[in-house]
């Protein structure tokens, strides 16, 4: 089953990378979000997928899931949230200042 998910992750990375290379600032942010999702899934999958019980002490048997990747991903989700919001606000501010979200137009003078 892991391989199916690895392939899905690969597709997410492709889409995310493609969006990163786009000219629209919003698409770039979208690309960043897609890649974040892919990374979170990757961490969980690498640890070994398990549909057993949740990592709670009174439930934990031999088939319970590994709690450590959960803790790591949880941190990552929250930090990713912070970064994404920051990016969104930056985009907003960029648009206010330059009246465009086209990265080609945002690059400044030719010979700096």
């Amino acid at each position, binding site marked *: *089953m892991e391989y*199916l998910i*690895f*392939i*899905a*992750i690969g597709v*997410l*990375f*492709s*889409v995310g*990378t493609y969006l*990163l*290379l*786009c*000219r*629209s600032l*919003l*698409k*770039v942010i979208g690309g960043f979000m*897609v890649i974040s999702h892919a990374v979170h*899934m990757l961490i969980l999958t690498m*640890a070994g*997928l398990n549909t057993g019980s*949740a*990592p*709670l*002490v*009174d439930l*934990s048997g031999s088939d*319970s*899931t*590994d*709690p*450590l990747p*959960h*803790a790591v991903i*949880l*941190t990552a*989700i*929250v*930090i990713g*949230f*912070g*970064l*994404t*919001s*920051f990016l*969104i*606000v930056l985009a*907003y501010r960029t*648009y*206010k*200042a330059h009246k*465009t*979200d086209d*990265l080609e137009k*945002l*690059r*400044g003078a030719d010979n*700096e």
Partner: protein
Amino acid sequence: MSLLHWIILIPFLAAFFIPLLGRMFPRIHTGWFVLFIPLALVMVTWISYSSLMADGETILSIVPWVPMLDINFSVYLDGLSFLFTLLITGIGALVVLYSIYYLDKKKERLQDFYVYLLMFIGAMLGVVLTDNVIVLYVFWELTSLASTLLIGFWFIRDKSIFGAQKSMLITVFGGFAMLGGFMLLYIMTGTFSIREMIGDVDVIMNHPMFLPAMILVLLGAFTKSVQFPFHIWLPDAMEAPTPVSAYLHSATMVKAGIYLVARMTPIFGGSSEWFWIILITGLFTLFWGAISALRQKDLKGVLAFSTISQLGLIMALLGAGSAALYAQDPDLEVMYAGAIVTAMFHLINHSTFKGSLFMVVGIVDHETGTRNLQKLGGLMAVMPVTFTVSAVGLAAMAGIPPFNGFISKEMFFANMVELMELPFFGMGDWAIIIPIVAWTASVITFIYCAFMFYKTFMGKYDRQNYWVDVHEASPGLLLSPILLGILVIVLGLFPNILTQTLIHPSVTSILTGVSVELEPYNLTLWHGFEIELFMSIGVVAVGVIAFLYHRKWTRWEIYNKERDVMNLFYDQGIDKLQDGSAAITRVQMTGRLRDYFMYMLVFIVALLAVTMWRSGQFQALPEGLATTMDTPLYMYGVMLILVGSAAVLPFIQSRITFIISIGVLGLMVSLFFTIFSAPDLALTQLLVETVLLIVLMLAFRHLPEMTKEPKSRSYTTVNVLIAASVGALVTMVSISAYALRLDLDFTAISDFFIENAVPLGGGYNIVNVTLVDFRGFDTVLEALVLGIVALAVIMLIKHRFKGGEDI
């Protein structure tokens, strides 16, 4: 911390207080405060250690710095270090005294000057007193830095900046090479301590890295000690104020390379490569420097090239003396040790006469406003004291008795003649060329000394050449060169006064590997009708004749080419370097986010692909696939929606559809977490996704429709190619890593958290306990990050584009 540590550190400490003192007592020349430091240091050093050194003892004191890496601030005082310490502090005191009268209190930035100078004194003392090569390297680069700052002291002049940059580039290049050499030595011996390296000399000698290490260390020494072809920075360094030229660029810093070669002689000496490289480089530099000095029309230019030439002489002597470490015969050992004696003696002599010459040239410049040999003339009557000191210094440099330069030059001739009898290192009959080169260079030295003497002081005094009223300098300005001039005479008449305390201890510390007990060498002004005496007489005779006919050969075209041809390489190199960097920058720094992403992604993909391919992981992929376990049918459905919601994103033009699609993706990821029993993740994801959607909605309300992507086929192709290769590689790396994990059967480290959640954390939700308890710090800092983000967001939204804040 021993006294020696303090000797190194005091100049640095003083550098902090100099600006304060300068501001507190604006009426007193800052130099008076500074003068106290080298003066105190030279007296403390002499009083504390001179008798110990005469007894041949050494002092070692270690203060740990980075002991894990074997980097210790260890100081080691032996004869060689002692000699250099006295030179640095002694000449330093005289130079500071001289600078007080040379630099005007009102016009110059005295604080800057003395901070740099003190930094140099400290760094230079660090170089010669430490036993740890890493510490030595750090101080070494500090001397380069101080030198650069001092050369560029009058930074309004373009030439100063040029000279400063040139010296920096060349000496720092050498310093880096030297560091590489030290690293190789560390690989061979496992220590950064010079003494321990000397103990391991057999390992070094037989190591395949011997020659590379030696060449790298020598690059450091040769660039610092202006050996051909790295000498080109010194003439341009003459833009520095004259006290600096006298101190750094003739008496001390340029001798750091000499010190390094002497210090490394016990390690590398005794090999034919060491002997030949240093001897030939030294002799060639001696010759080249002399010829170039002859062509200079600027007094300081003459002295710069003459310094190059004299340093070549000392270098050649160190090379010749290293033969003593190879010769197993006691007679030969003593004979070639003589070259080291000469080297040390000439080192002292050169510092005295060249120091005084630089100072008098500075005085001439100061009083007449010119250093041009074609303008000067007839100053003998106007400046009698300056004239006398110059005459003494020039006579010593030209090798005329009874001055100290005569003795060391005679000894140099004798050493070079003795080299012809060397029974090893492939020396043959052709070796007669060695004394011939030495002798010719000395003739040229004699001629340019005569030029300096004649053109400056003799001839007709023409007032129209000077735009100021020329008169003798003030006594304060004259004091330092007079003291040095007296030393020149004293050392010439009584050369043995320093043998016991300075020269012999330094020679024995350089030649630690010889089998015989070296006796103190007896230096005499008169040592009979030997071959070297006839060589000296020849020098004077030919020199005088050549000088008398100088009007003939000074018309030659080659004579008038002042600038060294080797500069061509530097100038071209700098031009090409700048053009090259500019070209690369133009290609690289386009200002397009897409380009930057492309560079990074292509690089990462290439790096990973090459690594995977080299470790055979691509081939192992099919085997990894074989371990797949069953996939439930609904999983295909989940993945289809998840991938599908992402895959449509690039094709969407409407903002609201884009946001919804991203929302679907987030919810599917949340579902994914639910399926694999990660309720905390699923909940957090759900929450975050909701909030992000709101934020996106809010922001997009203010944003325009998304820019359309260009329709160009090549543009899309490149994007698709990069995106596809990134995705494919991520999949392959994951599969390979996952297969490896199954193969090696790692045990998870989470057992600790599972077992200890209740006893140590007191909670039943293990993820929760891990986050708030075991990794509590991490979570607190995470909250901090979110707080900073929140502040930044507020700032970015609320802050007005013009005018004040309204937060």
